[in-house]
């Protein structure tokens, strides 16, 4: 049973982030897996889940989400083996420190060795990231500049747009994927959705044809990228 939990969509759902949950559940169901999508509202306990999704949010809601996550069982559930897909504000919250509202610094959850400062200007536009030989495409809209430390690996290298710092985007650990690409990212990149799904399910997946394949090729073409990089 695949359980996908959207955490606080009221706070972290600014950029169609519900779409990532929908895509995971639908792509699992179409392959015959039992899958459910839970939406965790403010004030609710964090439930058991196979993967938690954290989306984008404005400054104030981002801080509130951080406080709620720090107070609840999120970190221990991730420690116990749950996976996480974190986009934009979600990416920042999982790190040690992030800055919003001017240059005030807030403590993050410290699950990864990343730090986000206020960027000199906002990063708004198409984003393309080379992830182990494949293009990840999406749209970014954030004011952060994220620096990775220690042995934390980036998700990929940036070919269009800014990502973390103009060179790298997001990060990847054994159980966490993080990126600045929304779109939503799993809808635009079916190969990435399946990579996340296969990892969470611990199984190899049969290919699944969908109109999203056409969308992915079209977006790569629009950005001047060869889809088989």
């Amino acid at each position, binding site marked *: 049973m695949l359980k996908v939990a959207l955490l606080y969509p*009221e*706070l972290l*759902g*600014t*950029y*169609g*982030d*519900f*779409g990532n949950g*929908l*895509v995971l559940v*639908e792509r699992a169901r179409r392959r015959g897996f039992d899958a459910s999508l839970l939406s965790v*509202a*403010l*004030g609710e306990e964090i439930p058991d889940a196979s993967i938690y999704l954290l989306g984008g949010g*404005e400054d*104030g*809601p981002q*801080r*509130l989400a951080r406080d709620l996550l720090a107070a609840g069982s999120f970190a221990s559930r991730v420690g116990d083996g749950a996976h996480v897909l974190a986009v934009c504000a979600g990416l920042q919250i999982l790190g040690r420190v992030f800055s919003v509202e001017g240059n005030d610094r807030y403590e993050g959850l410290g699950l990864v060795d990343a730090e986000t400062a206020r960027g000199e200007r906002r990063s*708004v*536009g*198409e984003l393309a990231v080379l992830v182990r030989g494949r293009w990840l495409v999406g*749209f970014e*809209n954030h004011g952060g500049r994220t620096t990775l430390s220690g042995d934390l690996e980036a998700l990929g290298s940036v070919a269009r747009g800014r990502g973390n710092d103009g060179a790298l985007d997001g990060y990847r650990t054994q159980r966490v994927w993080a990126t600045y690409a*929304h*779109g*939503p990212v799993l*809808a*635009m990149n079916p190969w990435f959705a399946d990579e996340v799904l296969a990892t969470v399910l611990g199984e190899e997946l049969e290919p699944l044809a*969908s*109109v*999203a394949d*056409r*969308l992915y090729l*079209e977006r790569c073409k629009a950005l001047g990228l060869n889809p088989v990089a």
Partner: protein
Amino acid sequence: MSGRGSGTVAGGRVGLALCPDLLGQLAKDRIVLLVSGTNGKTTTSAMMATGWGSDVTANATGANMAPGHVAALVRSHHPRVVLEVDEAWLPDVVRSTRPAVVVLLNLSRDQLDRASEVRQLAERWRQCFSDDQNESLVVVANANDPLVVFAASGAQRVRWCDVPTPWLGDATSCPRCTRPLAHENGAWGCTCGFSRPSMMTTTLHHGLDVAGVHVDLALSMPGAFNEANAAMAVTALAEVGIAPHDAMPRINALSGVAGRFTLRQWGDHRFRLSLAKNPAGFAAILSTIDSDNVDVWVAINANIADGRDPSWLYDVPFESLRGHRVYCLGDRRLDLATRLEYANVDFRVVDDQSLLPVADAPVALLANYTAFSDWLEKSAGC
């Protein structure tokens, strides 16, 4: 070339560059009513201009930033003025034009790639009203939209309107302190003390009541959202001395505004054209589609005027179109088709519009901003 005489947006831009206070000078000694909000600006402005009677100065559709306002005020010298104002421009335009009334319809996510995020916008509005020295200013505000209530709380004189506001997806956390807002039976409030106002000037439940007067609301345009727009238009006009009984029949007779909601002909096809450019607008229009209309056309672009990021398609409740067949049009038809496929809605991607089948009855065509303009331009009224 002088910007003042031309009455165009380009002329307005030149004029403002030469004289930054041009808008203030042009608005001086006129009665100015402003309308802002995410959805319904154009329609509500048209309702107010119509309801006010003849000889009203108004801006052209879409020209809702200061250069467009200058153009409108240069083009027409009538002292009665209705301007629709882009949300981000509202504080500047309030300072320049010293309006008698500002109507705040609603606030929700729209074009996040170029506009401020919606909470920041509400805070800028609130600041503008609390700084305003114009003591005669009246704000007509939607009391059911927490972001609007927060913005209007900066003003001294507010007329609250209890009107249908189904989309509250951007107002689940308190605009003042970000804690969760508790919603119950249409009321809402936060532990910080911020809550829904209780003293209503206007209510729209069993008919329309404005300041204790029952008004016969019978619009020619569809949808509960247009009834909300009309209620707020009538409330605003009452503030400048137009009795609701005089304004309402004129507004009731209005059948379409700038092509919105009108029946159009294109080749052998007939369609009813609606503008829907963000999740709240889409949700409102989708609620007007009944099960008899099997075929629905939806056209999505992502040009600068539309917002270049179509991720908002995942915030639109397209699931309500199950049972219909949706034809995906526009530059971003594949983004739309992907959204619909995951929503388990039957869809066709239309790469060649000449292959669109002709339906017996007019189809519903929902289009976002530039897609709407494209379809309006290539079709004719019928």
